[in-house]
C-alpha cells in the first residue's frame, strides 16, 4: 500500500541495509517531531504535551509492519498516547501532529478537540486514541472478531503502558481473545518503561514479567528489548505472523525508555538516567559503516528545519469556531460500514 512498506523478510534473517537505513530515518524523524512538540509546549504553542520519545526503536518498526488500510482486511490499531513514531512510520505527515499540539481547526485527528498524540484516522483503521488508560484493550476484541469472521490476514493491534495493565481491561482483552469458542487475532503490546507517571513499577507489580500474565490463558507471549530496533522489528514481525496465520492472540512486552518524563505535567525535560535507543542504534550503524555521523547529523538538521518551518506555518492556522462544539455529536451516515468494502 504505502511506498514506505519494506519487502518482507523472514523473521530470522538479518535486516537489509536499506531497511536499517529506513528505520533510522524514521526514528530520527519521530524524535525530532517529539522535540519540536516539546518546544511548542515550552513556547506556549500548546497547553499540554505527551508523546513517545524513547520508544522509537519499537514504535517505528511497529508502524512499518502494520498492514495499513481500511476495513477488516487490514490491521486495526488501538493505540495509546505514545505512538507518534508508529504513525510516522505508517506514513503520517508530522505537520498534522503539530496542528493537534496547537489545537487548530485544521488538526485532522480531532479538529482541535483533543490532546496531541490522540490520533484518529479511519482511512488507516487507526481508532481514536483516548486519554483513559487501558480502555483500548476492552475494545480490541471487537475489531478482532470482525476480522476473524472476515477471513484474511488482518489483525488487531493494541498498545499501552506497563502501569495500565493493572486495570481490569487488560485482563478483559486476554479473556476475550483466548475464548476456546473463538480465539481472536489480537496482538497485545505493552511498552514497559517501568513507570506510571511518578509511580515505580517495582512496588506495584507482583509479576516478574507482564508477558507472564498471558501464560495462565495459554496465550503465547514474549518480553523483548524494545530499545533495539532490529530486535523489535524481527520480534514484532514474528508475533504478527503468528497472529495473522494462527488467528490467535499474542502478548508482546517491550522494555523501553521514557526519555522526557511522563508528559509536560512533569516538565518534559530530558532524563539522564534512561538509555537512548537512537543513540545506541546510531552507534551501531556507524560501526557497521551503514551511516556516517555526518549523514546522520545532516538528516536530523533537515528534519529540524522542516518542522521548525512547519511550526511557524501552522501557528497562524485558525482555531476552531466555538459554534462547532455541537458538530458531530451524531453521525448522519454509517461511515464505518460504508468504508468496510475491500479495496
Amino acid at each position: 500500500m504505502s511506498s514506505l512498506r519494506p519487502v518482507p523478510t523472514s523473521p530470522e534473517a538479518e535486516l537489509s541495509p536499506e531497511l536499517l537505513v529506513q528505520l533510522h530515518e524514521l526514528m530520527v524523524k519521530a524524535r525530532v517531531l517529539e522535540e519540536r512538540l516539546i518546544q511548542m509546549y515550552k513556547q506556549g504553542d500548546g497547553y499540554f504535551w505527551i508523546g513517545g520519545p524513547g520508544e522509537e526503536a519499537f514504535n517505528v518498526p511497529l508502524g512499518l509492519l502494520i498492514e495499513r488500510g481500511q476495513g477488516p482486511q487490514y490491521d486495526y490499531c488501538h493505540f495509546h498516547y505514545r505512538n507518534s513514531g508508529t504513525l510516522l512510520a505508517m506514513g503520517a505527515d508530522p505537520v498534522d501532529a503539530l496542528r493537534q499540539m496547537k489545537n487548530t481547526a485544521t488538526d485532522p485527528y480531532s479538529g482541535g478537540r483533543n490532546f496531541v498524540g490522540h490520533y484518529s484516522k479511519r482511512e488507516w483503521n487507526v481508532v481514536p486514541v483516548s486519554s483513559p488508560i487501558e480502555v483500548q484493550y476492552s475494545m480490541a476484541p471487537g475489531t478482532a472478531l470482525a476480522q476473524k469472521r472476515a477471513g484474511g490476514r488482518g489483525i488487531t493491534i493494541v498498545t499501552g503502558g506497563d502501569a495500565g495493565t493493572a486495570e481490569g481491561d487488560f485482563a478483559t482483552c486476554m479473556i476475550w481473545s483466548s475464548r476456546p469458542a473463538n480465539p481472536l487475532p489480537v496482538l497485545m503490546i505493552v511498552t514497559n518503561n517501568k513507570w506510571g507517571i511518578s509511580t515505580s513499577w517495582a512496588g506495584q507489580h507482583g509479576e516478574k514479567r507482564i508477558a507472564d500474565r498471558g501464560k495462565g490463558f495459554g496465550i503465547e507471549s514474549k518480553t523483548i528489548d524494545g530499545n533495539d530496533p532490529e530486535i523489535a522489528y524481527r520480534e514484532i514481525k514474528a508475533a504478527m505472523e503468528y497472529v495473522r496465520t494462527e488467528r490467535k492472540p499474542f502478548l508482546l512486552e517491550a522494555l523501553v525508555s521514557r526519555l522526557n518524563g511522563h508528559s509536560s505535567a512533569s516538565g518534559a525535560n530530558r532524563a539522564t538516567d534512561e538509555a537512548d535507543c537512537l543513540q545506541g542504534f546510531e552507534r551501531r550503524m556507524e560501526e557497521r559503516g551503514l551511516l556516517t555521523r555526518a549523514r546522520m547529523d545532516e538528516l536530523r538538521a533537515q528534519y529540524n528545519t522542516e518542522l521548525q518551518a512547519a511550526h511557524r506555518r501552522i501557528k497562524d492556522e485558525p482555531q476552531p469556531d466555538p459554534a462547532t462544539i455541537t458538530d458531530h455529536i451524531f453521525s448522519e451516515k454509517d461511515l464505518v460500514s460504508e468504508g468496510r468494502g475491500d479495496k
Partner: protein
Amino acid sequence: MVQAIRMALHVAEERHGVTDIFGEDVGAPLGGAFTATQGLKTAWNSPLDERGIVGASIGLGLAGCRNVAEIQFCDYAFNTIDLLKLAGMMHWASNGDWNCPMTIMTPVGSGIRGSIYHSHSFDATATHLPGFKIMMPSNPRDAYGMLLSCVVDPNPSFFLVPKALLRVRAQPGEEIPGEPGDDKALSKLIDAPLGDRSKWQPQWPDTPDLFVPFGEARTVRQGNDLTVVSYGRTLPLCAKAADELSAEGIEAEVIDLRSLWPYDWERIVESVRRTGRVLYVNEDTEVTNFGEHLIRRTVEELFYELVAPPRLLAGKHVPGIGLADSLEMATVPQLPSITESIRALAKTSA
C-alpha cells in the same frame, strides 16, 4: 413484548446486517435471561464481563459490524459508564471521522420483585451520556419498531427494556403486521421448547420493517385538563389512571415519550400549552432525574402558560428497591400514587 423483541432481532440479522447479538447467556441454550434472544442465528454467549461486552460492542461497531450487546440487567452496567461515554463521543472526539453503530439492550426497572440488584432504572444515567440515542418501549409493537430503529442507526443507542412489561401482549389493533394473532400460535413458532433444544429451529413469521422514529412521542390518550408524560413501565399505569379519573371528570392527556433522546419536545409543548398542567412520571430515583430535565425545560419555555406547578412523580431517593412487596410498592410509582398525583395536579388551583 419479549417475542416482539426477538422478532425484531431476527429481522435485524436477516435484513439489516446485524452480525452479532451477544452477552451473558444470550446464545443457546438459554437465549437470554428473559428469552429475548432465543433461536437467533447470530446470538452467542459472552464471558461474564460487562466491560468486555461493551468494549466488544464498540470494537464491532468501529469495524462496521452492526451489533446488539445485552447487559443482562442494567444494574450491571454501572462499571461500564466510562466505556459508554467513550462510545458516545467516538464521532465527536474524532471530529466526525469515525462513527460507531451499536445497540446496548438492557432490561430496566422494577416490577418482578427483583430486590436491590434487578430493579435499577437507567434513564437518568443514559440521558446524562451525550452521543447516545435512547428508546424505551411501553408496548410490543413499539419494542419491535424501536429496536429496528436502534439497529439501523449509525450511532450508539440504548434500547431500554421495561422488564415488568416483557410478558405484556399487544392491545387489539396494535399487533405487529404479520404476527399470528393468536398468542399460542406465536409461541409455538418462536418460543424454544423446554428440555432439549439442540434440534429446535424457530419458525419466524414474516414481519415487515417498521421503524419508530427517534424523537417521536405518541399521544395515547387525549385530554385537556392536564398532560402526563411517561414511558416504559409507568406509561400503561398512567393511561389506566387517566381512564379511571375520567369518571371524576378529569381528562388527562397521556403522552408516551418513547424516544428519550432525542425527545419530542414539540408534542409536549403543544399539549402543555393547551392544558397548563404537566406531570412527568418515571421510576428512576428522583434526584438528578431525567424528569427534572423535562421540568426545567418546561419552566424555561412554558412558565407563563402554566396554571399549576409542573410535577415529577419518580422513585424515592433510596439506595435500592427492597425485596419485600411492601418496600417495592413504597419506593416506585404504582397505580394509586399515579392516580393520586394526577388528581392532585388537576385540582391544584391556579
